[in-house]
Every structure is written in C-alpha cells, then in structure tokens.
C-alpha cells in the first residue's frame, strides 16, 4: 500500500514537474518575444530620435537662411538713402522700388509654398530662400 502510494505520489510529482517545465518553456518564449519587441521599439525610438535631430537642424538652417535675407534688407536700407534718391530722380526711384517690390511679392509666394522657377534665380530680395527652396525642386540626374 505504502509503496503504491509512494509511486503514485512520485508519478504525480514528475507529472507536475513536466507541466511546470512546459509553462517555463512557454514563459521563456514569451520573454524572448518581449525582448525582441523591446529591441524593435528601441530601434524605432532611435530612428525617431535621429529624425528629430535632423528635422531640428533642417529647420534651423531654413530659419537662418530667412534671417540672412532679412539682414540683407536691413543692410540695404542702411546703405542707401532712398529719400535722397527720391529727391534726385523720383521716376528712376519708383522704377527701382517697383521692381524690388515685385521681387519681394514673389518671395512671399515662394515662402508660402510656391515652387521655385528658373526666373526666381534673378530675384535679389530673397536669395537664400530661393537657394533653399530651389534645392528641393532639383531632380537628381542619375
């Protein structure tokens, strides 16, 4: 009787160990999957981080270019006495101003998303903006 019970107990114990082992194996697989997923998440985060760094740099470059155009205008205004021009030759001054204003208006169009065209390369009112936006429009040759 005692031997039979002992054997039954032993059998039950081994059976339970096997069941535990199966669960542990399943757990192992789950953990390994979780580790792989975590690894993928980390890689995605790394890519996102790189994108953010590049986007920040790109944005800073574009803003610097826009500021450079503004500084150029400030310099021009400081350099020339348009009041004196207007006194000496109002027709010629109006012509110069109208050409510049047409270019400035075109700059606004480009800034708001209008694609850069060949004629814009002659625009002296926003050289940096045209350069920046012009790069985007260039199609790679091979």
């Amino acid at each position: 009787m005692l031997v039979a019970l002992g054997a039954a107990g032993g059998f039950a114990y081994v059976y339970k160990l096997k069941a535990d082992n199966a669960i542990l194996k399943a757990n192992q697989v789950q953990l390994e999957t979780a580790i792989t997923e975590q690894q993928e998440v980390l890689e995605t985060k790394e890519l996102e981080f790189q994108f953010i760094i590049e986007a920040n740099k790109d944005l800073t470059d574009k803003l610097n270019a826009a500021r450079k155009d503004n500084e150029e205008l400030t310099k021009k205004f400081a350099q020339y006495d348009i009041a004196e021009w207007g006194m000496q030759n109002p027709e010629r001054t109006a012509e110069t101003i109208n050409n510049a204003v047409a270019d400035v208006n075109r700059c606004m169009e480009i800034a708001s998303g209008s694609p850069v065209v060949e004629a814009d390369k002659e625009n002296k009112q926003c050289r940096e903006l045209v350069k920046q936006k012009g790069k985007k429009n260039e199609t790679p040759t091979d």
Partner: protein
Amino acid sequence: MKPLLISILLAIFLTGCAGVKKIETVKVAVAKTPLNLEMPEPLESNEVIWIVINKDNYKEVFDELTANGKKPVLFALTDEGYKALGMNYADLREHIIAQHEIIITYKDYYESEKE
C-alpha cells in the same frame, strides 16, 4: 504509520500550491488616425505700383493721375515709413517660412508613410 502516510500525501498535494504561473502579456498599440489636412495654396500676390513724389514733381504726378482718370489722391509714406513697411514685410515672410516648415516637419513626422 498513519501520520507518515498523511505527511507524504500532504507534501504531494502542497507541491501543487507552489506551482509556476504562466506569464500573460497585454499589448495595446492604437495609432491615431492621420489628420491629413491639405496644405493651403501658395499666395498669389497682387501687383502694387509705388509712385515717388517730391516737392518738385508732385504737380506733374497729380496731373498724370487726373489725366488717367484716377482721383488725385495718394497714400504716402516717408522714406522711414517705407523702410519700416519693408522690414515688417520681411519679418512676416520669415514667420511664414517658419510656420510652413514646422507644419511640413510635423506632417513628415506624424503622418509619414514610412512610419
């Protein structure tokens, strides 16, 4: 003999209480639906004609306006006012560029197909 038997049976049954539990993981990843708003159309500027008048040519300019059927009135700026207007315009342009680029970058980041 009986207590020994009971002890063995108890020990066997109790091992069942210290069993290993299966891990369950729950995944919740629901992405937001992309907004996909259309970018506004680029500006199309209206032509603006500036007229420069001084103390010597104002009569001629007003006569020309009248001759062309326009009312002899001009909305004037001094050279300083003109410079200020020019700088305001340039600042606006810088602001438009910044906003435009920020929107594009956000769109690329949150609504990119690569995502």
